[in-house]
Each structure stands twice: as C-alpha cells, then as structure tokens.
C-alpha cells in the first residue's frame, strides 16, 4: 500500500460543473445585488443627510441641533415598535398554533387565509381604521386607566379626548405586523415533522407538552425571523402612524395622552412634503438613524439566535 498522495477535501468540493457554477453564480449574484442596493440606499442616505450633520444647530428645524431634533423621534420609534412587537409576537405564535394544531383540519387552511387577509389591508386603511374605529373605542379604557392606574408612568394621563394616542398606535402596529409574523411561524409549524410530534405524544405528552417539546423548538428560528420581519415593518411603518398618532409632544412614556413623540418614519412623511433645504437633509439624517437602529436591533437579535444554534437542526 503505497502512499501516493493525500487529498483533503473539505466542505463543498473544488470542482463545479458549469451549470452548477452558473446557478451558484446567479444566486450569489442575487445576494450581492441586494448588498449593492442596500449600499446604494446607505450612500444615498449619507450623501443627502450630510449637510444636516455639518449645518449649524440654528438651521436645523426647531433650532436645537440635530440631536435634539432626532432624539424624541428615536424614542418614539423604539417605544412604538417594541411595544407593538411585544403585543404581536406572542399573539402570532398562539395564532399560528391555533391554525396548525388546534383548529379542525378542514377549516385550518381557510383560517390561515383569513389571517393573511389582514396583510391585504393597505396601511392607509389601517390608519383610517385606527383613527375612526379603534381610537374612539380606546377612550373608555384609557380614561379608566388614567383614573385608576395613573401612578403607573405608562398611564399617567390626562387621557386624550380623541383616542389618537401611542396606545392606539401600538395596537394598530401590532395588528399590522401580526399577519406577517403569523405566516412565517405558521408555515414552519406546519412543517414540523410528524415523527417528532409522535415521539412526544408516545411519551404521554399532552398537546401543550407536545408543542413545547417538538413544535416550538423546531420553529424557534422561524419565530425569531418572523418577529424580526414584524419589527422591521413596525420600525419603518409610515402612513398608518402618521394618520393615527397625535404627534405633538416630546419624550414621554405616557401612552394615553394626546402629546406623543412621533416616530422617525411618520415624521418624515409628515414633514417631507413641505420641507426644503436643510430641513430635508435633517429628515434624511433621521432616516439614516432609523437605518442604524434597525442595524443595532438586528445585531442584538442575531446574537441571541446564535447563542444556541448547536442544538437546532431541521433533519
């Protein structure tokens, strides 16, 4: 037995047939294209925002400088988006479970379709609905909260008389991002291999326990992905927030009064049409900040996902 040579082959092989190479090239190209588009957006944002960074504080709208201008918006954006996600994500998991594991099989698919319908509603309509239907409906509860739980900063009051509050906005956002989160999670739950569900049931697990043992671990990555999509949408939602939220105040945790911080995206929509000069640059700078926020939020989420990948696996 002669040792003629040792080859180490690791991972994908060195040789690629042409069709494979082309296919791989196309898919990689698509990925790179996305990076390019994103780089384009970033360059565009940076170039357009630059004057705002260099302009003297007095030229920035409100005359307090860039930080003073953007900070309440950042706060409002984070507050609205986080709360919306907190409301929507658990609900989405429950709904996905209902559709995949609780609803009678016959109507389950139809129910999925019904929830997808929520995604079909244009965001302006959500805005108008929030304004005309939801806001009035929150008057009684918020009034009650202000009267009885006023010591909690979130419900400090005084309660708005029109209901166009952060509270309403959060609910509208939550409803808006619900379908996308649900859809991603639902499809993953549907794919849970029967094998594992059977394994847990055979151990005498109740349906709830089966879900905890086999379904949730399997769908964990999808839950996070779906939530990230939802959060992204909540962070960037423009028209609905612009219409629903009475954005006339500064930084406050008070969810039920009419003075609320605006969100970055909504503020851009509100101010952009009539703005010119440095004001526009400032708005774009706030867009850049939103970009950065999304970046950071995603970094954190990635870190959370990656912490426990060793025990996940689909097959």
């Amino acid at each position: 037995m002669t040792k003629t040579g040792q080859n180490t082959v690791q991972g994908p092989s060195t040789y690629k047939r042409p069709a494979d190479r082309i296919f791989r090239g196309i898919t990689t190209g698509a990925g790179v294209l996305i990076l390019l588009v994103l780089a384009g957006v970033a360059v565009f944002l940076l170039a357009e925002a630059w004057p705002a960074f260099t302009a003297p504080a007095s030229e920035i709208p409100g005359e307090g400088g860039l930080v003073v201008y953007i900070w309440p918006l950042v706060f409002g954006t984070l507050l609205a988006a986080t709360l919306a996600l907190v409301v929507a994500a658990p609900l989405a998991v429950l709904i996905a479970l209902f559709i995949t594991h609780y609803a009678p099989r016959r109507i389950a698919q139809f129910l999925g379709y019904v929830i997808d319908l929520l995604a079909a509603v244009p965001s302006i309509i959500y805005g108008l609905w929030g304004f005309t239907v939801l806001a009035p409906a929150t008057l009684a509860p918020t009034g009650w909260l202000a009267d009885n739980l006023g010591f909690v900063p979130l419900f400090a009051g005084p309660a708005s008389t029109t209901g166009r509050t952060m509270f309403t906005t959060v609910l509208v956002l939550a409803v808006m991002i619900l379908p996308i989160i649900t859809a991603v999670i639902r499809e993953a739950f549907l794919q849970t291999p029967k094998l594992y569900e059977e394994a847990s049931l055979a151990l005498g697990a109740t349906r709830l326990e089966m879900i905890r043992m086999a379904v949730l671990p399997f769908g964990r990555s999808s839950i996070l992905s779906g939530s990230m999509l939802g959060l992204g949408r909540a962070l960037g939602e423009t028209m609905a927030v612009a219409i629903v939220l009475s954005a006339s105040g500064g930084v406050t945790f008070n969810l039920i009064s009419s003075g609320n911080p605006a969100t970055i995206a909504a503020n851009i929509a509100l101010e952009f049409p009539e703005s010119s000069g440095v004001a526009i640059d400032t708005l774009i700078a706030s867009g850049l900040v939103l970009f950065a926020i999304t970046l950071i939020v995603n970094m954190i989420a990635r870190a959370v996902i990656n912490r426990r990948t060793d025990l996940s696996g689909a097959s």
Partner: protein
Amino acid sequence: MSTPTETRPTSADTEPPRDRTRLVRGSLPRWAPWATLAGAALLAAVPTVVATGFSLIFFALCLALCYVAGIFLWSRSVEGTRKAADRAFTAVVTSAFALALTPLVSVVITVVSKGVQRFDTEFFTHSMRGVVGAGGGAYHAIVGTLITSGLATLMSVPIGLCTAIYLVEYGRGRLARGITFFVDVMTGIPSIVAGLFAYALFTLVFGPGTVNGFSGAIALSVLMIPIVVRSSEEMIKIVPDDLREAAFALGTPKWKVILRVVLPTAVAGISTGVTLAVARVVGETAPLLIAAGTTASTNFNPFSGQMATLSVFSYYEYASPGVPPEPYLERAWTAALTLMAIVMVLNLLARSFSLLFAPKTRS
C-alpha cells in the same frame, strides 16, 4: 390500587396521587367547557358594567380571562395540573385567535361598508380624466397598481428567492453572514425613504424628473425583497436534509436538487411569503407618489410618464377632497376595497399555485 405504604415520587403539587390501575382519572364532563364559558360570561359582565358601561372588547377580554382561569382551576382540582394547563392553553390559543379576528372583522366591515357605494361598473371602467366631483373611476389606478406591483414582484421574487437559496444552500462565511444581516436591516427601511432612493437613482441615471411606473416598481422592490428573502429562507431551511441526500445520491447536480426537490417541498411557504410581500407593498403610498407620480389618465407604459396607483389615488382622494367631499371620500374607500380585493385574489392564486406543487401528503 394505591397502597398507602408505597410512596411514589409524585409530588402533590403536580398531580393527585396516581392510581396505576385506572386509566380514566377524574375527568371533566363533556359539557364542562360550555358551563365554564357561561359562568365566565356572568362573571365578566360585572366589571364590564361597573367600570366601563358596556364595551364589547372589554367584555370579551374579561370573558377570556375568566374562562381560562375557570377552566384551569376546575380541571386542576379534578384532572391534575398537566391536564389543566393543557385545557387552559387551548383556551388561550383559541381566544388569541378570536382576538386577532376582531380587528380583521372590524377593518373589513369598515372598508366594505364605506367602499361598497362606488363599487360599480363606472369605477372599474372609467379613469379620472376630465372628472370633477362625482363620477369617474379608478381604471387608470388599477392598471397602474397591477403594472407597478407586477414589475416589482417580477424583480423581487427572483432576486429574493435566489438570495434565500444562496443563504441556505451555498452561503458560508462572511458574505452569507453579511447578506443575512443586511437583509434584516433592509426590512426597517421606511417606505418613503425607498421612494426617495428610487427617485434619486432615476434622476441620477435618466435626468431630473424621471418619474414613471418602473421607478415606482424599483422603490417597491426595495421594500419587498427583504420580506421575500426572509420568508423563503425560513421555508427552505426546514426542508429535511434527508431529501437532499436522496436526490444527491441519484447523481443529481446541486442546482437540480434545489430546483426539483427543495423548492417544490418548500413551495407552499414560499408562496405565502411572496403574497405577504406583495400585500405589503401594494398598499404603499408615499414611495409611489414620489417615484411613480400620479395622473388622472390611463398609462400603460411603465417606462414613460407618471402612473397612478390605487393606494396613491385612494390617499389623495381622501387627503385633499374637493367640494363637496363625499364623492371623493367614496372613491377613496372604494379604491381601498378594490386594493384588498386584488390582494385577496392574488392570495388565492398563490394558494392554488402552491397546491400544484405542495407535498402530496393527503391522498
């Protein structure tokens, strides 16, 4: 046949002592859920009436809460903690679903009741050219919406799907991690920024004032792509490796394995994702107004001239109505209703499409 001397390692807080010979331990009668529901309804009515007058939403919340608590406690005393948790969770899941339906029903009722007035032939056959006040239709906007979102879909789906494939099947190392990361970042781009970006891009390339359907489609693509990538990626990821191995072992090149085995297995999820992405952008207003503009006339050419879209049409009919405002508002709502109908039809199409490929699990 539990013997008092035998001490089993069952702690009292989890289950009543387990009688190994009996299969049916105490179990709730079949009417128990209904009885609990009735009880919960009575209980929930009290705070509702006292605190808020009578608000349906508040009552529903109280009802759900009382029911979950009630069924849990009752079941626990008879059936043990595990069973009780299971029952309670069933109740939670069901009420979560009902809760999610509430806004849906409310939105649909709002849109349909307000939009049905002008849901007539004129609306679908006339444009707004030469129309002041009442009358007119959204033909031009429907055409524009179909063209712009169609183009956006044509661009985003291949790009998004290819990227998802790259990420799952090929992606290793920095590039893949970079793409995953930035795709997530992309989901947070506010729609108006996407519109400004498309406008700036076209101004740069084709000179100032290039506002057309294609530019609008580009703006929509920026919003669509991350959703397509993310949802497809998840769906491709959960295709079992077993199947890939089986196909590879037949001497199939990777690209064919992906196209013929992986994608068909994931197609249901992917098409759901794509429909959601379409639904997301089809209702966008600000980016389309900036990048695609608006017009009262029908324009079939996405590469030249402004193009009206339903969402923009709806928004400006609502936002700057004339005198009297009613016909404008009616058009706005009908346009919204039309938009929803379009997305619903798309959704149905996507579903039947995925049924063609979906795993043949039911015979």
